[in-house]
């Protein structure tokens, strides 16, 4: 069963008399376990699409199903439950709470899911180890680097074992090398845990590290699949080549 089913999805922003169409009858499906990137220039509606997929924005036309459930029809409680059980969010600006330690930040979703604290603590420790920041668990986010912050944020997104990771420009605030490490981490999570990863980026090279690329262009979507054999090579290039020489295209 497809984890995400999008059919003729149309999204329009209205501000008084000003009507701004963002998505126009977009359709695609993403299966469980896929690693997929959404790429497009700024203002093309990438984040809008991600917010729709995460149920943060539920004003749309057409059909949008996550795990078989039509998002528009769910109540606030049901959608919160879906987000808690099925979806993990990763943001460009990490959104870690500065007054909590890294471990407490990771444990946070557990409180809203109404599950026991002890289990949350054990899982947080395991996940912080997995994302490579175990030694920072008692430290507050203020005192760690950007890459480490994003790793903590990833651990937080994973703590309730979601099927889907929605990542909004996860490397946008990181240097190229750290960004590549984070992308590698996503690939690892996708491979080892079977988590479906959906990464939104405006960086063409980064998007090519995913086997499947959804390209947003002129309110429409173009679905392309990358040759898996080139992935490792792309990844290596993404981490070493300076931005000026990186060209768009050539992925299809």
């Amino acid at each position, binding site marked *: 069963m497809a984890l995400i089913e999008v059919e003729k999805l149309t999204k329009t922003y209205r501000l008084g008399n000003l009507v701004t169409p963002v998505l126009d009858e977009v359709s695609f499906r993403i299966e469980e376990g896929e690693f997929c990137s959404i790429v497009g220039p700024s203002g093309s509606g990438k984040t809008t699409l991600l917010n729709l997929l995460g149920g943060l924005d539920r004003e749309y036309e057409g059909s949008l199903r996550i795990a078989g459930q039509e998002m528009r029809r769910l109540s606030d409680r049901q959608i*919160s439950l879906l987000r808690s059980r099925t979806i993990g969010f990763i943001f460009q600006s990490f959104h870690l709470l500065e007054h909590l330690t890294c471990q407490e930040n990771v444990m946070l979703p557990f*409180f*809203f899911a109404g599950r026991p604290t002890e289990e949350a603590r054990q899982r947080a420790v395991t996940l912080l180890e997995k994302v490579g920041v175990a030694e920072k668990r008692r430290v507050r986010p203020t005192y760690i680097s950007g890459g480490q912050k994003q790793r903590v944020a990833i651990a937080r997104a994973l703590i*309730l074992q979601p099927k889907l990771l929605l990542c909004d420009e996860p490397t946008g605030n990181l240097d190229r090398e750290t960004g590549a490490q984070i992308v590698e981490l996503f690939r690892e999570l996708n491979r080892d845990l079977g988590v479906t990863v959906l990464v939104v980026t405006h960086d063409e090279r980064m998007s090519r590290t995913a086997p499947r690329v959804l390209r947003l262009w002129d309110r429409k979507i173009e679905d392309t699949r990358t040759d898996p054999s080139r992935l490792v090579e792309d990844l290596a290039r993404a981490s070493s080549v300076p931005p000026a020489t990186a060209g768009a295209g050539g992925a299809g």
Partner: protein
Amino acid sequence: MTLVGLTRVVSQNIWRNATSLSISAVGIAAGIALFSLFLALVEQVRNVVEGDIVPIDEVEVVPLSSDLQRMASSIFGEDSFGLSDDDVETIRRIPGVVEVLPRMNLSFSAVSFGGKALVGSEIRVELIADGIPPEQVRDELADPALPFDDLRPRQSNRICRFDTDCLWGEYCEIRYGGPPVSQLADADPLSVPRFRACALPVPALLSRYLLEFYNTIFAPGHGYVQLNEGLLRAAEKELQFNTRLGDSFMGPEAPRWRQRNLRMQFIGVSEKSMDLGVTFPIQYVRDWNREYAGAKDGARYSSVSVRAASKEDISDVIRQVRAAGFDIKSRIAEQVSSMVEVIGIILLLIALIVITIAGFNITHTFLMLVLERRREIGLFRAIGATRANIRNVFLLEAGFIGLLAGVLGLLLAYVSSLVFDTMLITLVPQFPYKPDTFFDFQPWIAATAIGFAVLFTIVGAFVPALRAARLDPVRALQ
């Protein structure tokens, strides 16, 4: 969301915004301090007014004054203006009545003089008195110098000439033989037999009201010694007053030759004693009334004091007493009580205004917090928090603040009450019914104060909490 999780998030939040939250909590605490201080003050005033000055669970039942039939029968017939034993029984059977105390007024004039040994000067007063059944005050009097009872069966009645001829505690009194005074108006004084015999003094009770009146107005004005209950118990002969029955400083009096002296002794203070006068065992009053005012005044009660099961029952009792054909002598107790209530309500309104202003302050603080935590609220929504979760985080936070403010306010009130008490007791001179403390902190006051603190903080935080819950997560996260 589990309560543990919610509490954890909330406690972390409170810790983080401790300064701004404690500033707004101080407002609530001040309001609560005022609120509980006023409540405790009103409670204590009520205790003093209703417990000592005017007992509010008691009313005095008298015959219906507008009952023409009764009036007519008392004027033209043998039936006296008063309450019979049957009437007393009827009143006793009214639901809610726990105690009835028939009273009989002294219906002729008498004067009292004495007290020189005690207060340094002879006091002469017109005697105003009544009688009550002695068994109804027996439990109340702790170890009186004389029992409050009809002591005549116990006295020796030995013929005497002087007090020294009598047993210890007795005195030599003049007695008359023959028919009562009322039937002897034209009789020859010399034909009435007259002799002296040993008798025990008549036990008399004072009211606390009269004692206060004496201590605060009478004694200072005349330079007399102030009295208290301990002194009343300790003194013996010093508290004996001579009483001349049938005499008066002003009004109608019995023929001089029929006036006679007897001795009364104050043995204690009782709430059942009449307010401005003294109270004797009813047997004496009955006989004296027969002797000086005629048979009919010895047969009827002037009023009946009725005590209800509780203060709440009194209005019901009053209604039923009226329905049974009797009247209530005075509504002063109710008037005083409603005055205390009105003052109390005014004070509480002031406190409530302070708490309400503090509540608005809470609203403002929480609106600021919602703005400050905008992105965090967006994040909470993204990681699975429902709108209700967000709202509850803010409301529980407010509840905690309210609880802390309530406890702080109570402490503040208690400390202030100690300061006020010390000031009022040391700096303000003695006045009637001045109590040891001006505040009575009942458990219900503490519970109400904390309840109000929590309620007002939660109500104050409600709009901000709803606003937080309704935040659009997409915009909040931007």
